[in-house]
Structure formats: C-alpha cells, structure tokens
C-alpha cells in the first residue's frame, strides 16, 4: 500500500491528515536520501577537488535533469533551484519585472492569488510605475476566461496567475491563457505551488514563460523549490540576490560578469540535501505511477464532495472544485472553532483565508475551512471525518475550554 511508504502515516495511525495543500508528508526514501547526505555524503558542491564533492555535485545537477523531464522543459538550464515557490515568484517579479517593465505597463492577475504570487508585483509596480489589474472572478469565485479575454490589451506585459487557487481549488486552463496572452505580447508566470503535486505538468504544452513551485507540496523537503523559465527570459532577467558562485568575474571598479542561467540565480551554498530530496521525491512519484495516483486522488475528492454535500450544516464554497481542495464552513460556527473541534478528533484541516486575503470580498466570509486530499488518504478517513462533522455544534467546539 502506498500509505506504508510514508513514515508519518505509519507512525500516526489515528491521524487524519487533510491539510495536504499546506504541505505533504514525505516518503521514506526522501527522508533516507537526506539522512544519507548528512551521515555519509556531507560536502559542498561545485568544488570538484575531491571525489565526494564531485559525486554530490553530479547528483545535484542530475536533479535538474529529473525536474526537467518531470515538467518537460527544453533544457536543464531552464531549471533554477530556489528556496521554494515564494522565492521563485519573487525572482520572476524582481528578476524579470524590475528589468523589463516600465510606467503604464499592466500586470494582470486575479483576486484569488496567494500573497507570495501577488505581493512581489506590488513592489515592482511601486518601483516601475506599472499598474496591477485584476481579472474579475465569477460569482462563485472561479476564474473566467471571458473576463480574462476582456482584460487583455497591448498594455498587458505580464499575466501572473495560480494554476490552482489555494482557496477554492479551481484549475485554470493555462494553455489557453498562454495562447491569448502571447498574442498580445505578454509573458505568463504561473504559480504552480498547488498544482505540481496534483496535475501532470508539461511546460512546453502549456507554453508558460515562468513556472514556480515548492518541493514540500510535492512530497519533498521544505525550503527548496524550482523556478522554471524559458531560457531567453531567464537570460533577460537579473537575479535579486548576489554573491557566492553566481558570477564569472568581478573587479574593484564594480564590473561584474554573471554566469548564465541557472547559476546566476543560485548565489550562495544551495539547499543541497533539499535538492537531492526533491529529486528522490519525483523519482518516487514516477516509480509509483504518478498519473494513477492522481486518478485515485480525483476519485477521493469526488467522494468527499459527494458526502459533504449531504450535510445540512455545511456551506460548501466550491462544489465544482476540480482539484483536491475543498472549502467550506459550518453554519453559525466560526471556522477556527470548528478546526479546534476537528483537532480533538485528530483531524488536521486548515482554517483561515489561506493567504489570499483579497478573496474574502468574493466569498463574503472572513474565514473558511479547507480540507485538501492526497492520494495517500483513504475513503474510510473521509467517512470518519463526515461522521464527526455531522455532529459538530458550537457547544461541542467549546467543550475543551469549559
């Protein structure tokens, strides 16, 4: 069983973990890989003076190839290792945006973006005089391709969107968006933090210009992520971080020659064990038939929606979700109070606005509960969850503190 490969699940048999959109558990092999680096193979990379460094440098670079294949990029030089999706998204905004945008240019985005996707552009807009515009969402908070088309113009230079909204879980059709955006000469930057572990991504087919994601939502370690960029765009971007081995030469007159992508973006010692762990996580998914795992996840989500829809005390915000994120509230009880109650039953879900604070206006609620599924969840867990949810009352939520 796939569950047996995850120590967190094996060691916590009574835990029901429905917070996979926040982070995922790690397979034993990923943990072993990181452990192996610390116990037998600790070294810095790109200092090929001795065998160990040479070997680990090669392994590290080989992860670029593993990632390249996983997302079908053209070249390993398009794969930049970062500290996570937030760092990748910041690199796009500062690296590409600050260098290439000017006054009056439009950065087009939506109201359901994660703060890591939108806030860097706030700063870029401040510095360059570019303007941020929001594509109006549908009434139910989903993305509207019609509104996107209406929002496009020659002034739009960047389209920055999440592949899957971390609040409502709707998947947007990136291929169509890229094709429209490119016809106006705009570039497309996609926040794939929520999609990378749940959809097979093909950057060539989607024709995206930049794509950002974290390893920790892809069954890999925290503190490491990837920025994919088309090579010519990475070349026309500047790092927002300098130092380390990212340069070829510099002198004390201030002349600096940077390396080419991806190295110019990787100043300082990388999260080496993190990158190795990421490589192992992707291999794990490949070996376990990722596409089949995705299908299982879809089936579980459908079952979850079907069962939760039967409860009278539930307000479901995204019945049409096509990802594994389910957002709801219990009538008359504040989200956090419900989560505390669920926690008492060993169920992990998230309350809050999940960083997309702008969306509060659309949902007309200050807080929601988010459950998010992984392929390692089970139908029986959903059944137990529904049973607990069915009986929740404000009284019960307060039980702990009385």
């Amino acid at each position, binding site marked *: 069983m796939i569950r047996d490969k995850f120590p967190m699940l094996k060691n916590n048999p009574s835990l029901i973990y429905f917070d996979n959109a926040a982070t995922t558990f790690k397979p034993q092999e990923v943990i072993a890989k990181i452990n192996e680096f610390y116990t037998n193979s600790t070294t810095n990379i790109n200092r090929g003076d001795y065998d160990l460094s040479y070997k680990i440098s090669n392994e590290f670079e080989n992860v670029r190839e593993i990632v390249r294949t996983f997302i079908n990029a053209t070249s390993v030089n398009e794969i930049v290792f970062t500290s996570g999706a937030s760092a990748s998204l910041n690199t796009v905004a500062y690296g590409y945006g600050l260098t290439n945008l000017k006054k009056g240019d439009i950065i087009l985005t939506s109201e359901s973006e994660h703060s890591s996707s939108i806030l860097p552009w706030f700063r870029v807009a401040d510095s360059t005089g570019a303007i941020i515009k929001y594509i109006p969402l549908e009434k139910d908070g989903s993305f509207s391709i019609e509104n996107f088309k209406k929002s496009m113009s020659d002034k739009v230079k960047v389209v920055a969107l999440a592949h899957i909204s971390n609040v409502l879980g709707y998947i947007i059709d990136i291929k169509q968006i890229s094709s429209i955006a490119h016809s106006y000469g705009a570039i497309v930057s996609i926040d794939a933090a929520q999609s990378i572990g749940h959809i097979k991504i093909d950057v060539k087919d989607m024709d995206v210009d930049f794509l950002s994601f974290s390893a920790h939502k892809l069954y890999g370690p925290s503190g490491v992520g990837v920025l994919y960029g088309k090579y010519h765009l990475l070349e026309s971007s500047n790092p927002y971080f300098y130092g380390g081995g990212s340069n070829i030469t510099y002198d004390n007159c201030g002349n600096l020659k940077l390396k080419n992508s991806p190295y110019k973006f990787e100043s300082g010692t990388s999260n080496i064990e993190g990158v190795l762990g990421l490589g192992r996580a992707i291999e794990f998914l490949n070996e376990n038939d990722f596409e089949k795992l995705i299908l299982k996840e879809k089936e579980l989500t459908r079952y979850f929606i079907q069962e939760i829809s039967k409860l009278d005390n539930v307000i479901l915000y995204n019945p049409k979700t096509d990802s594994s994120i389910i957002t709801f509230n219990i009538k008359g*009880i*504040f*989200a*956090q*109070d419900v989560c*505390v109650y669920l*926690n008492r039953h060993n169920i992990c879900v998230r*309350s*809050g*606005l999940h960083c997309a604070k702008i969306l509060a206006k659309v949902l007309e609620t*200050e*807080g929601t509960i988010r459950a998010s599924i992984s392929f390692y969840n089970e139908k029986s867990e959903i059944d137990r969850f529904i049973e607990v949810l069915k009986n929740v009352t*404000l*009284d019960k*939520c*307060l039980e*702990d*503190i*009385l």
Partner: protein
Amino acid sequence: MIDKEIKRQIIIDHYSTPRNFKEILAENYKVVDLQAKSCVDSFKIYLDIDEEVIKDFKFQGKGCAISTASISILSKMLIDQKVEVALEIIENYLKMIQGNEYDEKKLEELVAFDGVKNQIARISCASLGANGLKEELKKYGKTK
C-alpha cells in the same frame, strides 16, 4: 469555579449577541486595532476615555467564539471604570488565561474562560482583546 453549563451559556450568549458591537467614527474615540497573528480574527475597539474614566467602549470585527465573547464581556465590564481599575481587571484576566494565580472576584463573567489555560491553541484567542486593551490603556495612563 463555576459550573460548566453556565460557562457555556455565557460564552455562547456573548458570541451570538455581542454587547456594544458597533462601529464608531467619532474623532474623540481612540481606535485599538486588533489583528491576530496566526488566524483571521480581526477587531477594532473604540474607546472614549475622559478624565481617566472609560466613558464608552464599542467594538467591531470578526473572530472566533472565544475572542468575540471575551471582548464583549470586557466591553460590558469596563464602561464607566477608571483606566486604573480596568487595567487591574485585564491583568487579572490575563493571569487566569495564562494559568497563574488570580482573583476570581474581580472577573465576573470573564471566569467563563478559566479553562482556556489548558488549551494552548486558544490562549491567543482569549487574550487578543485583553492584550490590545492593556497596551492602549497603559499608554493612556502615561500621557495623562
């Protein structure tokens, strides 16, 4: 120690019909902005303080049952109190929440929260209003 059932009633009553729940725009009111660090709870408290007495206390916002009810009870208790006395009540309440010795007599309905100390996750909910008020009232005391 009061009965569990009474505590439950107090909290649910103040959560479902919070007292002094109203936005105030008048300039003579001090605004205390409360933003929780780890959840979405967010309130504004409006204080009219005159001659070291809290003449009026209104609040508005959104939060869980515990944060809402605790601010509602505080509003009821602190109107017409001297700043000095208000600070004493708040200090005493925070002591209870943090599991320290406290004087039950001073706390009236706030004793409904005496079980919070056992639930680390809820301490911040129960302290949100009290902490914000304490900061503001301390400041006020000094400038006077």
